[in-house]
């Protein structure tokens, strides 16, 4: 076919099927019968307006919706930070209790594991009648999820503190408080920070599901995309979400390095049996919630 209509049309004159008045069943531009052999459906030529074309990647989206994106991003960061901070504050006494009384330990670990098994949609749905369509609902759910990872890693870290060191500190006259905060906690820090990192990254991803109760940060943009089919919005929000997780992980890694300078000291073999990096045990459990 020599004169392909969709190619010969000058750029900038995007045609939308059905928007121009004309004979029904006949394309207004080409005059050919729709569905007739050889008919080419009008291809929407690049008109420079990626929003109208509903492109996946669209610079104009950033210009026109920057306020919306910033609000969602801010809410996402807020939900994540608040949830992880509360999670750490709740998990620490739980880990201490679990270390002190073994039966309590298995009950605590068992119950947090059960909580972790509950799908996030169900978790938010169960909490929703009590705390309403609020950020509180999402934060409670996210805190409950983070507990599994945090308590496990804190406990692993505290248990890995060498008994010799504890004995030495006691011999030097350290009381229980000083022993915990000046000896055991610093030694357990790498394992604890590994847990905080895993919990933070999971929380960033899980926050998106909060959209079903109206507070999902970037998840709100993804959720509304289901109805609006707004591709640029969904892709941007998804990419920002992953970027946020990576940035948070790197920031926490930096904090960990600052807090534990002895971990970096040269390439010497470490003398203390630290539980380093996300351990295999933690990895196997993390990721169940979605």
């Amino acid at each position, binding site marked *: 076919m020599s004169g392909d209509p969709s190619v010969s049309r000058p750029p900038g004159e995007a045609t939308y099927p059905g928007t121009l008045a004309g004979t029904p069943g006949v394309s207004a531009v080409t005059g050919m019968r729709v569905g007739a052999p050889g008919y080419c459906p009008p291809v929407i030529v690049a008109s420079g307006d990626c929003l109208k074309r509903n492109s996946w990647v669209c610079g104009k989206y950033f210009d026109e919706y920057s306020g919306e994106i910033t609000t969602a991003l801010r809410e996402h960061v807020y939900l994540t930070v608040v949830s992880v901070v509360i999670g750490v504050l709740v998990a620490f006494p739980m880990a201490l209790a679990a270390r002190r009384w073994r039966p309590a330990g298995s009950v605590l670990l068992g119950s947090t594991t*059960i909580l972790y*098994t*509950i*799908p*996030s*949609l*169900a*978790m938010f*749905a*169960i909490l*929703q*009648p*009590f705390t309403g369509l609020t950020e509180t609902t999402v934060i409670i759910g996210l805190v409950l999820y983070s507990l599994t990872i945090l308590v496990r890693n804190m406990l692993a870290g505290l248990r890995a503190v060498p008994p010799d060191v504890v004995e030495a500190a006691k011999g030097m006259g350290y009381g229980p408080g000083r022993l915990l905060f000046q000896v055991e906690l610093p030694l357990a820090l790498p394992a604890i920070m590994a847990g905080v990192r*895993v919990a933070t*990254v*999971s929380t*960033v*991803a*899980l926050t*998106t*599901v909060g*959209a*079903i109760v109206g507070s999902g940060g970037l*998840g709100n943009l*993804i*959720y509304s*995309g*289901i109805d609006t*089919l707004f*591709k640029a919005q*969904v*892709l941007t*929000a*998804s990419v920002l*979400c*992953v970027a946020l*997780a*990576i940035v948070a*992980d790197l920031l926490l890694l930096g904090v960990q390095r600052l807090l534990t300078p002895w971990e970096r000291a040269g390439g010497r073999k470490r003398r203390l049996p630290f539980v380093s990096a*996300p351990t*295999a045990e933690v*990895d*196997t*459990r*993390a*990721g*169940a*919630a*979605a």
Partner: protein
Amino acid sequence: MTVLGDAWDWLADGANWSGESGVWNRLSEHVVLTVVCVLISVAIALPIALWLGHLGRGGALAINISNIGRAVPTFAVLVLLGLSPIGMGDTATIIALVLFAIPPVLTNAYVGMRGVDRDVVEASRGMGMTGGQMLFRVELPLALPLIMTGIRTCAVQVVATATLAALVAGGGLGRIVTAGFDLQDNGQVVAGAFLVAALALVVEGLFALVQRFTARTPRGGVTS
């Protein structure tokens, strides 16, 4: 606490259990979706993990794939696939679920394979076993506990993720929750959520039983 009463009433009403949007139908959709996705992901991930673990290569990939999987929101991938030419439907759901089910199987199986006592592997080599014999008669049986942990995590995760499929026009028990949201019927929302949570816990429990059972089988006969 009236919500819990409403949820109980909803569950007690036989009419909610039958029909296309009834509990039984949604449950069977959920179970079928889970089984299909777990089988596909195990079929993809296990051979790769066993091979990489046997060769001792690709450790960074096998470990990091779990970290990557954790950072990517499942919900986002479901919607992205739905908006792509694949369209919202079963295909998009299965692809998304399989993508997220692969990492736990791959990572655990790899860690399990690498965790096999090197002395045992060396001994089997010394006995003149071929690579295949070492893989299937020494390494695989010894790595089985962690492989099962991976499949268990994968199954529980698929049950959880399949719930999200309801948001993207999929089937399954999540539909009861989302329908409850649409009807502003909190009783139904909570009832649906309990069903989903119960299914996840049942799957977890079943796998725990299977693991306990397999752990008891004597291993002596395998290497002798």
